[in-house]
């Protein structure tokens, strides 16, 4: 399974735009090439203020010289803490101009997290947005002995702060202007010193375990990856982008900083985090990124608003959304569509999709990305059906974002795309996705062991995610690598992937799949009382309790069909065909956090379930038709009791593995 996909290293390497290999050089380049075009916007006092590239250069020059006047030296780290503000973006490039290294920190970090990063990065300078961040910095300053100078952007509420290491942004700039007058040429000489291979930024990633790690990226990492994305998607200097995701997150760094500087497009900052949706509508970006949960919450808002809308609007919305679901995705993909549908879709565009996209601020979107977790296929298709070019990508901080991107015309809700330009991918024997690219980080700051663990000597980086490449060349991520096991025939077993497929059916509330070290896959099913109960009512099937309902032959039949459907899906995928569910049973009780079977966030505790229901698992892997179980349960009032049941074991149809034939 060592299939490697992507270009070999012999392929031509892309040139940074006009030979600019650092961001300060790109800034100067943009100021010369498109000096009077807007580089940044920010909504302030209710009005969009904008700065041209030339003005940004002027601001950055003053700031860089000012920080130098305050004592910033080459190699010093500059912590940057706050919401997306033009001045904070300028701080990044200003620091880079004089050899400093920006270290953006998540603005919602609590003081302890902030202390860790500042101390670990050995930041000497900090740029804070406002009083709130300054208060946190003052609280932790004793724990960060290296921190010497703190600059603040917004002076609101700061007039009684008298510490001499605090300097207001404007003050720094005016000192910088004086410094610039006294040392003309200093700025340009400093900018020229840096080379593409030099460190450009530390991005701290909050790992799921342990302390955050500082990912060190070079200018070349960021610029080449950004430029590859620009070339791949055909982005131009005319894009409009709203910077609203944390500056400390690699995505924002590539989209609203790297790509903006490389392509020369304008980035706008919202008025406040609460006004993002409103500002989005006013701005109408052409290029947009949002994690799945944001797309999901926008959709929910739309649906709720539609429930409140007038009868006519509601009818129209549902009628035309049905049209869009039928043909919108195909129209966007440029596939043939019957002329009648095409006409209806055009009418819908006029009456529903257009106004809707306008209200959401999506009218002008040419390219929208989502990434980070799996997006629900219905949510994904909703936006595509509206004609919004939403794509998935797969990336990581260690890759300077892009690992795979869905190419135009090859968009699928359940894959994350093909390797991005200059990216090579291979799948390790344990199913883990490995990649190699020009965006591969230099190291984890001050953690050589962690670096060695993640990045092999020959440059392959472990993502920690398990996945496989389909016949269409698209990567499919199935689980965290550590959760993936193996069936006895050596094929991959990704329990969460299978369980999610089962839970997609409304009648199935929870599922637990077994198969690691077994010959085949078997599963426990929890039915959804509400969904199955209402089915039973509709069909006049009497039942007295959850246990009775779960044991009904009709219910077994429903579940069996669903399992078979999942098997059919799995069989189309050569990598997962052997993960088809042979036998299943419907549990007589709901898995419950009170019984320790679920976590409080309703995630299955696999090990506990396996121990507790061992007889059931044995039954699943035997030839028995029924199996007896006796378990302890906790009632709602806290009393304990025992529950015993004879459970039927269902067998589901399995299918011949057939490779995907559909042309992509």
């Amino acid at each position, binding site marked *: 399974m060592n299939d490697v996909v992507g270009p070999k290293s012999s392929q031509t390497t892309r040139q940074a735009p006009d030979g600019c290999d650092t961001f300060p050089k790109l800034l100067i380049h943009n100021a010369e090439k498109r000096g009077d075009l807007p580089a940044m916007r920010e909504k302030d*006092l*209710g*009005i969009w203020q904008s700065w041209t590239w030339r003005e940004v250069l002027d601001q950055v020059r003053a700031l860089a010289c000012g920080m130098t006047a305050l004592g910033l030296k080459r190699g010093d780290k500059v912590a940057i803490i706050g919401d997306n503000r033009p001045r904070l973006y300028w701080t990044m490039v200003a620091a880079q101009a004089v050899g400093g290294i920006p270290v953006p920190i998540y603005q919602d970090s609590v003081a302890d997290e902030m202390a860790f990063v500042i101390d670990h990065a050995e930041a000497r300078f900090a740029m804070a947005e406002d009083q709130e961040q300054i208060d946190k910095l003052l609280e932790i300053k004793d724990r960060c002995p290296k921190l010497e100078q703190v600059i603040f952007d917004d002076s*609101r*509420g700061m*007039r*009684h*702060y008298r510490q001499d290491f605090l300097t207001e942004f404007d003050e720094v700039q005016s000192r910088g202007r004086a410094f610039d007058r006294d040392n003309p040429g200093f700025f340009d000489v400093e900018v020229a010193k840096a080379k593409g291979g030099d460190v450009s930024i530390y991005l701290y990633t909050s790992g799921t375990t342990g302390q955050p790690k500082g990912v060190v990226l070079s200018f070349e990492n960021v610029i080449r990856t950004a430029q590859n994305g620009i070339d791949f998607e055909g982005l131009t200097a005319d894009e409009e982008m709203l910077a609203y995701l944390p500056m400390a997150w690699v995505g924002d760094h590539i989209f609203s900083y790297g790509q903006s500087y490389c392509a020369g497009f304008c980035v706008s900052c919202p008025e*406040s985090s609460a*006004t993002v949706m409103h500002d989005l509508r006013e701005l109408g970006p052409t290029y947009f990124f949002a994690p799945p949960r944001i797309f999901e919450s926008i959709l929910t808002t739309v649906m709720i608003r539609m429930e409140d809308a007038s009868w006519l609007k509601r009818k129209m919305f549902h009628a035309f959304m049905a049209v869009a679901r039928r043909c919108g995705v195909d129209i966007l993909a440029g596939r043939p569509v019957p002329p009648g549908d095409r006409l209806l879709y055009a009418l819908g565009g006029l009456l529903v999709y257009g106004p809707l996209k306008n209200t959401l601020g999506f009218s002008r979107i040419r390219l929208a990305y989502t990434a980070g977790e799996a997006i629900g296929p219905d949510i994904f298709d909703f936006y595509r059906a509206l004609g919004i070019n939403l794509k998935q990508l797969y990336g990581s901080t260690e890759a300077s974002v892009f690992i795979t991107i869905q190419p135009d015309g090859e968009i699928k809700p359940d894959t994350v795309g093909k390797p991005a330009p200059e990216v090579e991918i291979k799948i390790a024997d344990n199913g883990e996705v490995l990649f190699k690219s020009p965006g591969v980080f230099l190291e984890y700051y001050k953690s050589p062991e962690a670096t060695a663990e993640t990045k092999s000597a020959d440059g392959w980086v472990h993502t920690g995610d398990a996945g496989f490449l389909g016949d269409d060349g698209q990567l499919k991520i199935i689980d965290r690598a550590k959760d993936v096991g193996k069936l006895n025939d050596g094929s991959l077993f990704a329990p969460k992937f299978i369980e999610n497929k089962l839970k997609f059916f409304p009648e199935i509330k929870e599922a637990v799949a077994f198969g690691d070290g077994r010959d085949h896959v078997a599963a426990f099913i929890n039915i959804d009382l509400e969904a199955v109960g209402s089915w039973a009512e509709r069909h006049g099937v009497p039942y007295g309790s959850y246990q009775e309902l779960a044991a009904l032959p009709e219910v077994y039949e429903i579940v069996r069909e669903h399992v078979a459907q999942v098997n059919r899906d799995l069989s189309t995928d050569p990598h997962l065909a052997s993960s088809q569910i042979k036998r299943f049973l419907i549990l007589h009780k709901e898995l419950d956090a009170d019984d320790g079977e679920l976590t409080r966030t309703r995630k299955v505790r696999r090990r506990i379930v396996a121990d507790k229901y061992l007889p059931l698992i044995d039954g699943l892997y035997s030839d028995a038709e029924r199996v007896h179980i006796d378990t302890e349960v906790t009632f709602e009032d806290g009393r304990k009791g025992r529950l015993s049941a004879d459970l039927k074991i269902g067998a589901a149809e399995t299918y011949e593995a057939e490779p995907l034939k559909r042309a992509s």
Partner: protein
Amino acid sequence: MSQVQKTIGDTLLKVEGISLSFGGVKALADISFEIKQHEILAIIGPNGAGKSSMLNVINGFYHPQEGTISYRGEARRRMRPHVAAKQGIARTFQNIALFKGMSTLDNIMTGRLLKMRRNFLWQALYWGPAQREETEHRTFIEKIIDFLEIQAIRKTPVGRLPYGLQKRVELGRALAMEPELLLLDEPMAGMNVEEKEDMCRFILDVNDEFGTTIALIEHDMGVVMDISDRVIVLDYGRKLADGAPDEVRADQHVIDAYLGVSHD
């Protein structure tokens, strides 16, 4: 943190021998006190102690039967609400009094009514000086919106806002009047801890940045002791104590009447 000591100025408002009764019920009995320039004065006391009545007397909603009010040295028997407003006294209400049908922006804009100078013909034509004036007012309002961090609800009809935000809008409208004296009637009632903290910060910042004198009624003793320069304690229409927060806290009368007894 080295706080700069703020300077409390001369007397801004002085009430002398105020008595107010409704029918037979005596709401205020011979109350006298002063409000000094730039200070934050808290009026506390149990329910029914006459706190709100006191504010209503100051801005002219109630007319006391006895006593005088001197504002900026000018003594008068009764205040009229619109005259009080013209002279620079703004207020908020215990049970929010906003223009429910208007947006946040329009509500705060009404606070500028008294500052609008151009005659109505100019305004009607919305031309020349009137337009310029409108822009100036709008800029001022935007600064308040920024100050109170309510950008996101600029265009929202206030009736739809949650309680805490309505209180903030009400404060915004009072600030739009650029008052010299700001009367706040339970500015933090019904708020959660976070909203209270925000409101405290706004009150302190208003006092600090604009030099506005503030008299407020509040139930939350922690808040009162934290933010006020001076505290007056009322009980059954009488004044029990008047002094710095620490003095008041130590005052035996106050402890007996108010602080000692458990109170929500």
